[in-house]
């Protein structure tokens, strides 16, 4: 075995450990990551039941919406897009982080990304899944969804969105699945006391993995191809989502800045989501050994950088038009800066963007607990920001709003919309939770490879 070395971000030089040591590491890690899959504690069970309950309430609300039409929502002719659409944008946004952590950091050789790839990728898959669902929920005629294929017009940004969202979903799912195959095989071999359906599932999904030379090669090859492919896809999915707004003539959306502005915001929000997930998994599944303070520190730095980039696009998006204060746009900006939306607007800009940059510049703030609190504030801010991008613009059309029922000139979501949106958020969390109860949340081979332990070599020596 040739003794190769590599340098990680913190310039620690690893040299190859003796084989016995490597094998011991592997078994140890295998037990650590399989533990949450073997047992689910009471808190875990209560959490799952809670999420299912929230989803059931949402399902009932959707049943009412299907039966009575969208009049059960707070949407009307002026605010014809609202909570559903802003939630859709939020889900698409957080799904971009899969590409960021698993691809960008991977291709730029930031070795510390290794234990985070699976967390990022499941957030991406769950996010994009519910983005697709929520857009169907927003439709007035979901029964006619096939019209998109029968009568689809390629000139419509919605059709672009259907194409990129489904493509990104498939590639993210593959990007999650392919590096997971060795872990599925491990579950198949180790978790023999699980129910029959689960064992069958492992056997089916492991597609006969036995760690031979060719299997490792194909898998690694496919993963590196995907990691390149996923980046343009991720950028296009959120750019196209931005174009749903930017291709209109509405003051506030009619902006050439919208694509990069959305992508920058998405990377920032997604990174904060990964930090929260890291924190929860570290606590709940005792992953302290793998999700170390170094990882939090690095993710904190990444969040500072991304928040700065996002702030740059915000300056372009708000301050440049504010300098000109052109007609219809001025009404909107005044309402955002000093009008009825100003508490939310400034709250989001300060707690979701400005403060994270300032606070996270200091190293103590990048310890897990303070970092996760700031990340929570970023995620809440990101969600509210999408609301601000959709609703106030709908309520500031060129033509004055006159002679309409009073509830038409304002927008406030009804309990139906709130329950459905809560259910979709619960759905994302449930997908992530159930996934973590079926599969190891940290990739063994990727993490150990980062420590200079090559499982491919090890497997092939064995055979």
């Amino acid at each position, binding site marked *: 075995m040739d003794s190769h070395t590599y340098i990680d971000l913190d310039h620690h030089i690893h040299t190859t450990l003796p084989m016995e040591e490597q094998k011991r590491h592997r078994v140890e890690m295998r037990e650590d990551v399989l533990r949450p899959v073997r047992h689910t504690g009471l808190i875990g069970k209560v959490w799952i039941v809670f999420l299912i309950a929230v989803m059931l309430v949402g399902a009932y609300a959707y049943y009412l919406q299907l039966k*009575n*039409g*969208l009049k059960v929502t707070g949407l009307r002719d002026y605010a014809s897009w609202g909570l559903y659409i802003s939630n859709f944008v939020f889900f698409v946004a957080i799904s971009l982080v899969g590409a960021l952590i698993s691809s960008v950091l991977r291709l730029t050789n930031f070795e510390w990304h290794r234990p985070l790839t699976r967390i990022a990728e499941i957030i991406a898959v769950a996010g994009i899944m519910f983005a697709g669902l929520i857009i169907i929920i927003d439709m*007035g005629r979901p029964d006619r969804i096939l019209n*998109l294929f029968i*009568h689809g017009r390629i000139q419509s940004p919605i059709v672009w969105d259907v194409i990129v969202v489904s493509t990104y979903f498939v590639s993210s799912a593959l990007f999650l699945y392919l590096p997971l195959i060795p872990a599925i095989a491990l579950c198949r071999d180790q978790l023999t006391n699980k129910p029959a359906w689960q064992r069958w599932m492992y056997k089916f999904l492991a597609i006969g993995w036995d760690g031979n030379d060719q299997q490792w090669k194909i898998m690694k090859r496919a993963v590196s191809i995907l990691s390149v492919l996923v980046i343009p896809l991720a950028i296009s999915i959120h750019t196209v989502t931005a174009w749903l707004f930017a291709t209109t*003539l509405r003051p506030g959306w009619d902006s050439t800045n919208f694509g990069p502005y959305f992508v920058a915001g998405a990377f920032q929000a997604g990174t904060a989501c990964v930090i929260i997930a890291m924190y929860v998994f570290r606590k709940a599944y005792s992953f302290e050994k793998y999700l170390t303070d170094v990882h939090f520190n690095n993710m904190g730095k990444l969040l500072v950088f991304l928040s700065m980039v996002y702030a740059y696009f915000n300056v372009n998006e708000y301050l440049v038009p504010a300098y000109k204060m052109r007609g219809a746009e001025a009404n909107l900006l005044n309402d955002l800066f000093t009008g009825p939306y100003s508490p939310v607007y400034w709250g989001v800009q300060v707690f979701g963007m400005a403060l994270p940059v300032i606070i996270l510049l200091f190293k103590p703030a990048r310890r897990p607990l303070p970092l996760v609190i700031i990340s929570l504030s970023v995620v809440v801010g990101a969600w509210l920001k999408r609301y601000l991008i959709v609703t106030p613009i709908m309520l500031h059309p060129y*033509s004055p709003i006159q002679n*309409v029922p*009073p509830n038409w000139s304002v927008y406030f979501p009804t309990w139906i919309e709130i329950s459905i949106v809560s259910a979709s958020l619960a759905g994302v969390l449930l997908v992530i939770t159930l996934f973590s109860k079926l599969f190891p949340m940290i990739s063994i081979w990727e993490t150990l490879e980062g420590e200079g332990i090559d499982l491919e070599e090890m497997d092939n020596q064995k055979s």
Partner: protein
Amino acid sequence: MKEENENNSRRKFLKFGLLAGGATIASIGLQKNIMGETPASGEKIKVMTPDGKLVEIDSTHLEKSGVDLTAYNKELRDGIAGKKFIKVIDLARCANARKCIQGCQEAHSRQAPVEFLKVIKMKETELSAPYWMPQSCNHCDNPPCTKVCPVDATFKRKDGIVAIDSERCIGCRFCMAACPYSARSFNWGENWGIAKVKADGDASCISPGENLSNRMGTVQKCDFCPEMTSRGELPACVQSCPNGTIFFGDANEDVVSNGEDTFRLSELLKKRGAYRYLEDLGTEPRVYYLPPVNRQFPFEEDTVKHNTTE
């Protein structure tokens, strides 16, 4: 249609529509309903048979409601051949009588809160004088709404009309977001803003591709009353305005009429300094406005709130 409107210019206007467009609707009616055994009323109506002959039939043999228009989507999507419909609104004549809204609602079997047409109080600056401005779909020649439709459910016809196929619409409301004139409205629930259909059948103007009973969750808007114009009548809003504010006509014939006066379109636009709403957006509206100069009525504030309940 009111008796007093039946003057020469009007008849001239009526002719083109009857000859050009009557065929589609009438022939469907004929095929389906001429076999009926209803007693004759004595009132004769001219219709065109599928092979192009003009025949007179008894009015009771003609039934318009429940006609499956979707089978004729091709014709309905293309529009009336040779026509370029256009509307001119003379702001000097508008006194906020709101009869156009009422007429529109009646013709389309709608009621509050659905208004395809709104009369908006406009006041550009602190110093400028307020005026009333009827606004509805501008049937743009560069329509932002049809561009974004994912399923071609809203489309531009050759006769200038931007129409909606409510049988195809998936209710994504992208067209509503895209329309800078807020001209589109949505069927938020079952029979949303639908007035009771009259007992003696359906007197309403049904848009091409519109299905009265299956419209929940789809978008709707002003349709330039193609069913009425194809019968040779002026759109409902034009007919119901007591002040002759709204003119309608054909740009190819270079003529517009409000039912009383008929003008050469190009001359009227030139002489009266016509403009289009939000011209700089480049949507190329097919609705022209004549500025509110030399007004026929002094501006009066509205004392009543309209359309206040859902």
